């Protein structure tokens, strides 16, 4: 998979546009089982990435990913900032300039593990890990971009009946059941944005 500068730029723009379009939805999900700032936090983070799109896209893939992670860490401000930041930082460390599919799947798995370590969490606790984990599995199984986007969306939906065991939603105990996790939703949106761009290219 050749991800050149133009494609890197399109990926950044698409992620930022998707977050922008769903900012209110993320806010509402976080209002239901958190403090209501996940929409603004994600938007602040990806707006900052977009503001540096030229500089980021000009760098080779690993540096671009690390730059995105750094930018998210420094701008988001919530519990999810270091989690998204860690994901991109570690993905950038794991990949070389032209990762093949297997290398990408392995890098994704490594970045996910770093997120779990940062959050002291694991799948099943109603967090963004509940999206990352099935996506990681689908990547390893050579799923298409469209298929991966579907897996991510379904995984976010699957957090609805879960009880939160990490983050603020855990304060609500059983009342966290019946709502989609905001971080799971935002992860599915970011993954969906990336897949939409890649589906339009070679795949």
């Amino acid at each position, binding site marked *: 998979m050749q991800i050149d500068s133009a494609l890197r730029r399109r990926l950044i723009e698409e992620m930022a546009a998707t977050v922008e379009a769903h900012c209110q939805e993320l806010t509402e999900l976080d209002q239901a089982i958190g403090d209501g700032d996940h929409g603004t936090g994600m938007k602040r983070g990806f707006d900052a990435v977009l503001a540096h799109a030229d500089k980021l896209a000009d760098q080779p893939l690993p540096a671009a990913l690390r730059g995105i992670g750094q930018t998210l860490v420094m701008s988001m401000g*919530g519990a999810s900032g*270091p989690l998204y930041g860690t994901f991109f930082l570690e993905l950038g460390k794991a990949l070389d300039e032209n990762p093949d599919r297997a290398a990408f799947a392995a890098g994704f798995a490594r970045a996910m593990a770093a997120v779990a370590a940062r959050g002291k969490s694991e799948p099943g606790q109603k967090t963004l890990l509940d999206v990352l984990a099935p996506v990681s599995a689908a990547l390893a199984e050579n799923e298409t971009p469209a298929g991966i986007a579907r897996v991510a969306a379904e995984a976010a939906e699957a957090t609805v009946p879960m009880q939160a065991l990490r983050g*603020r939603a855990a304060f609500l105990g059983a009342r966290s059941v019946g709502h989609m996790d905001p971080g799971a939703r935002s992860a599915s949106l970011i993954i969906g944005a990336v897949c939409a761009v890649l589906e339009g290219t070679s795949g």
Partner: protein
Amino acid sequence: MNVGIVIVSHSPKVAEGAADMVRQMVGDSVPLAYTGGDEAGGLGTSVARILDAINAAWSEAGVAVLVDLGGAETNSEMAIEMLPPERRERAVICNAPIVEGAVIAAAEASGGSSLAKVQAVADELSSQ
């Protein structure tokens, strides 16, 4: 030099008020810095500001960081990882409540205790 204290709250008011309480107990005997609020001034935390606070309260004896909820902790962890390597080992996050922990940790630090002792005394609060 005494261990420094860094207070990281989601709320700028909590951070400042807790610092007032610390100052009342220990005066200027302990390096102290605080931060609260995200990049946009809302409730939250900012890695950049946490880094600034850690550097402002820096002591060769190390700094103990007091945080309130989840995001304050993970953002403080990120900030510590961004410190220069020689400082990284001497910045610790206490597993203690932010206000009570800051006062106790500062009282301990004002007596010249080591970073490990300051952290241990603050952490004890959570197991009482």
